């Protein structure tokens, strides 16, 4: 199993969700995060004092998937999250050791 972690622009969430739904992925966790890569931040001025804001708001999506699905899911996320401008984000794939469904106690692929 794999854990797919995608950092995307907040405005792309709905597109990504729909793309994943069509691949039969019906569960995900979304966290509001801040970060930057090549995208520069911006500056804010308050009564003449300027503050550089380096970190930009992004969303982190985490999905647990079967090994066989992971490539298709990465592609789907990439296609739906992309705007073509700097700051679109990154997708990471990690090995996932175990999964448990809390309600039923199911483990492994049955719990995905």
């Amino acid at each position, binding site marked *: 199993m794999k854990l797919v972690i995608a950092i995307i622009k907040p405005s792309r969430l709905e597109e990504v969700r729909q793309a994943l739904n069509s691949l039969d992925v019906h569960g995900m966790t979304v966290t509001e995060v801040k970060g930057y890569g090549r995208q520069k931040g911006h500056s*804010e*001025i*308050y*009564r*003449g*004092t300027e*503050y550089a*804001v380096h970190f930009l708001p992004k969303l982190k999506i985490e999905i647990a998937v079967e090994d066989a699905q992971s490539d298709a899911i990465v592609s789907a996320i990439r296609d739906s999250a992309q705007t073509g401008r700097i700051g679109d984000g990154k997708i990471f794939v990690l090995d996932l050791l175990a999964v448990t469904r809390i309600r039923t106690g199911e483990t492994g692929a049955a719990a995905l």
Partner: protein
Amino acid sequence: MKLNNTLAALGSALGALALLAVPALAQDAAPATPAPALDTGNTAWMLTSTALVLMMTIPGLALFYGGMVRRKNVLATIMQSFAITCLITIIWFVVGYSIAFTDGGPTQAWLGGFSKIFHNGITTATLWAPGVANIPEFVFSMFQLTFAIITPALIAGAFAERMKFSAMLIFMGLWSLIVYSPIAHWVWGGGFLGGLGVLDFAGGTVVHINAGVAGLVCALVLGKRKGFGSTNMAPHNLVISVIGASLLWVGWFGFNAGSELAADGLAGAAMLNTQVATAAAGLAWMFVEWIVVKKPSVLGIISGAVAGLVAVTPASGFVNPTGALVIGIAAGILCYLAAAHMKKMFGYDDSLDAFGVHGVGGIVGALLTGVFADPTINSLGANHSIVTQLIGIVATIVWTAVASFVILMVVKLLVGLRPSEQDEEEGLDITQHGESVAE
């Protein structure tokens, strides 16, 4: 209904008969002046004004300042306004009012007396300014109390995010007695500044220059916030600040128009002057900032508006609306320069620009009152002079600067002024008050 109508008719008939019964004596001698009666119109307005001015502090100023600090200090900042409201109320009731507004006999030029401690001797029938305002003295004291409350609350803007709560309480309590009440006495309570003819309708000197300069002294004595100049100290919620500024604007009608102590034409003029100056100052700050940093800002327009409110305060009952317009434009521009540029130039940390807005705005307004006072608006402004205004300004600055400094030193010895560096870093909400707005 019928009974009331009958009684009313009876009353009118009796009244008419009584008049007819007055003998020809009336034509021989001047009629005796009747004892002044309570003016219900004035009293109703003053009761309302008082509530408006209290609203300026809680929650007006509390929110205005609260939104401008970092989230970890928002509760501590709001707490200052609220706690000051409670503290000053008691002090004023017990002794503050008396030393500000009674005749001090031999000390009258500098200080009132103790004859009205605990409001001793004042009853529901006692009138303030009998023959003039004819409002209950309880109401007058309440109205003045709301001024005594907001003045120290304004100072808190200068030391925001870095003063120990206990130190603040002690400082404000002493300050109210040693600085506020005396200066109020000098200008409004029969003291020497009023006697000289210093024109201050609603508190340009007593409230704003006073608080602004005291704030500057506090900022200098306490020193800068940890990380000042290198840390992001941006306002955490300007929506709250806008709500606060709006409450200040609306409440200020009580502050300025209420200072007439009557519901009359001059109060109306003061209200319009306030509106015009505030709007002009808001636009002026906004436009100057737009030119300098290329974007008009929310913080800019509300700061400008407050600067206008401050500057028109001493002038509101003395100038005409055109004078108010000029005062507003001047305040918007000069306070912007003071807050955004002068502060950086000199390098002091007046966190929320208590001096830049209230100190500078108050000085601008007090001086321009000496220029624009219009005797057709208020005959008391007939002998207006910049020199007299300057005397009032300087006297206020000197006393508040010296006394605030001494009080700070005393408080420093007693409990220390600042929280530890670690506590300041973690945030005053948690470390001073054990509370947090964060999830």
